[in-house]
């Protein structure tokens, strides 16, 4: 289905460009339109629908994925700019057997309701926790400032990330 859609557009669109992207550890090569944005590439070309689209202009953080470990808004990030990079999406967080500590903590802390913002929060939080310093509450709040949740009121999300940070620090929950 996706291929036939792409072909019909290609008749009127600009020439395609080749990209090779490492997606959750798997190398993927495709021809994409120059204007293709990463979230459409992930969702439509690769069928990775875990990454959601919401505000469509890089404000709400819902579509956050990691490109070479750095969080980006996939709704405005050009697929062509991911050429040669490693992209991690929510589908790549867990090894398929056990949940990533962040995933487990979001479940345990009821840090989600409708779940639509959850992949973005997880990826943004992973970027923070993968950094050199274990963040405190203030750093977590500042880092997640650009992610919108319309359901929870945020408190359980902070608690979920704090819990994982404390474990990393070997703190009270560690």
């Amino acid at each position, binding site marked *: 289905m996706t291929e036939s859609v792409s072909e019909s557009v290609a008749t*009127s669109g600009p020439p395609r460009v080749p990209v090779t992207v490492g997606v959750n550890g798997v190398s993927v090569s495709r021809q994409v339109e120059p204007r293709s944005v990463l979230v459409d590439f992930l969702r439509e070309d690769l069928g990775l629908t875990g990454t959601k689209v919401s505000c469509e202009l890089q*404000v709400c953080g819902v579509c956050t994925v990691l490109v070479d470990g750095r969080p980006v808004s996939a709704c405005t990030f050009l697929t062509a700019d991911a050429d040669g990079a490693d992209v991690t999406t929510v*589908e790549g967080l867990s090894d398929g057997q056990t949940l990533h500590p962040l995933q487990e903590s979001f479940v*345990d802390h009821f840090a*989600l*309701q409708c779940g*639509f913002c959850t992949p973005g929060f997880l990826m943004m939080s992973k970027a923070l926790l993968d950094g050199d310093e274990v963040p405190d509450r203030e750093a977590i709040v500042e880092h997640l400032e*650009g992610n919108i949740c319309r359901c929870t009121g945020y408190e359980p999300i902070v608690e979920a990330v704090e819990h994982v940070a404390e474990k990393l620090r070997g703190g009270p929950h560690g």
Partner: protein
Amino acid sequence: MTTIARPVGTPLSRRPDDPVVGTPLPHESAVLHVTGQALYTDDLVGRTSNVLHAHPVQAPHAHATITGLDVAAAYDVPGVVRVLTDADVPGTNDAGVKHDEPLFPTEVMYHGHAICWVLGESLEAARQGAAAVRATYAELPALLTVEEAIAAASFQGARPTLARGDSAAGMGRAARVFEGVTSFAGQEHFYLETHCSLALVDENGQVFVQSSTQHPTETQEIVAHVLSVPSHAVTVQCLRMGGGFGGKEMQPHGLAAVAALGATLTGRPVRVRLTRAQDMTMTGKRHGFHAAWTAGFDADGLFTALEATLTSDGGWSLDLSEPVLSRAMCHVDNAYWIPDITVHGRIARTHKTSQTAFRGFGGPQGMLVIEDIIGRCAPALGIDPAELRRRNFYAEGQATPYGQPVRHPGRLLAAWEQVAGTSSLAARRAEIDRWNGRERHRKRGIAITPVKFGISFNLTAFNQAGALVHVYKDGSVLVTHGGTEMGQGLHTKMLQVAATALRVPLERVRLAPTRTDKVPNTSATAASASADLNGGAVKDACEQILGRLEPIRDQLRDPSWEELVAAAYRERVQLWAAGFYKTEGLSWDAAAMSGHPFKYFAYGAAVSEVEVDGFTGAYTTRRVDIVHDVGDSLSPLVDLGQIEGGFVQGAGWLTLEDLRWDVSDGPGRGRLTTQAASTYKLPSFSELPEQFHVALLDEAHEDGVVYGSKAVGEPPLMLALSVREALRDACAAFGPAGHSVELASPATPEAVYWALCAARAAGRAS
């Protein structure tokens, strides 16, 4: 958490030993959500072959006649398959239930109104096709504000009056009478998942619509009447929604109908997914209101009378504006006894999106009016606003203006006193006054406000629900019910109800997607009542099955669940049941605005503290304390999440979220200027209260509801009125004692700045 002090309740409300209800559980789909496996409607598109994508042609005028529509050029765009216009509608060209929402209009009623839809092989082809459609318009005058509509006498729908006693005589008894106007803005739902429908037609002509809808049955009905087919020829399914908040109660129907019409005409699946800008410019929002009021108080500060005219901004069509207005009028009393009262209601017709349901459904608007009145009158009365509120509380034996006795008013007082105590309100009040005395350029404010919110649909007929419970031969259980899941945890609660009722472990129960061919004739998942209603129906179905199993159990010696079920099957016992529930004791006369529309009231109280900067009006919320009544909680983590999230969403409405339309006479008149997350400020981490304490009210068993619980979806939103009143209190501290602060809503930093400037000016004048 909630405790039960003694054996209480009715057969409906009583819990067995070791119930699964009341257990703090994660959201039933939590693991799917964190792994990205949870499917929303648009995620199904790539799992469906040969899908066409739809794009609307949106009119660039707020009000105009369509003088010409030439769609030929769209077909020249590669990939365009079909343009849908009114000529294609086999049935009724209407997307609503009031027959005032043409799906393909001849008259443009708001800026961005979709006049036709283009289907393409890709969204891009459809978009380009829509851009190629040539429409011509003859512009007409447009009304954009409630004030403009009032001046032009542009109203729609019923104009009810709610009255008790003789309000003129009540004013005559008053020691002080105040008059004022309270105007406030609406709110964009900004569910993170925009509207989406995916329709296909099977080999036998059955239309299958997967839709992000809070009201599958009504979506089914609208699709059926647009297609001119019976309801049984249309199936609507909703897996889950990425947020709804009322915005998907009525607004999905027309979009689902476009998808279904396209699928019927082309024989291919059709996807309608709105972009964020389309969603914001095309779909309805919370109603803003204009309220003109006169309030009388006696020498002790007790209300003697209230007269008010509430005018809601309905936008271009009625949709849910009438019931929203009814609920606003039924909540203008909030927690207060007002002996003589007359409230008139009317709905302005303006050239904007059709304003609709939004969490609270008029309740917040009604309460805002009375809390604004108290907040403004208290300084003139020389009574502390907290004391003025407390003094006017309902007492046992009193009834609302619409004639319903207020049951358990003591629970409101208990919540109030508990939160006043746990928040150290009195001590902090004194400390804040001292702090404000020292600080010249910053002021703090603190306020406590109550919530009394009526639970049930105002319209009695909607208070029914169905469920279908299957027990399979291996003992596993599949539950389907009429409610939809939008994150609020309804499915989690229903699993807990089923496991409790059948006395099986939670793991034995699975929940099936909400579908109109499983449970028909459902009410919207709305009015906070879905756990009450569907929970009652699930429990009924489970108890029917258990009843049939009892004779088999008697024949066996202490059988396991699996042994019992297997034996029952062999004995030819029916192992599934359709459950039904209707709320007893309700009545409502919409013409007289009187009756007993609510099963019960949910209560709560909140204390909020803010700090305001005198140079900019910028503020922070320092601390929030809440005590809220959820009865005996069905699922404590779900309920806490509803309370916290509802409060923050309410605070967004009252302080941040600022919908602006172009009201100039320029060419953009009527355009929504805040049509993106970049210009429409949503609550984010930076507005998170520095301290946020939430507790559930103890000893709150509700014996009229499944397992003693109470509804929770909407009531906590109105606890955020405490933030607005705290901001008023802080602004007042910039002025002289007794100054009455008028605060715009939303109380953005700019609005707060103007309010504190007025307070300062009053100080200079005195």
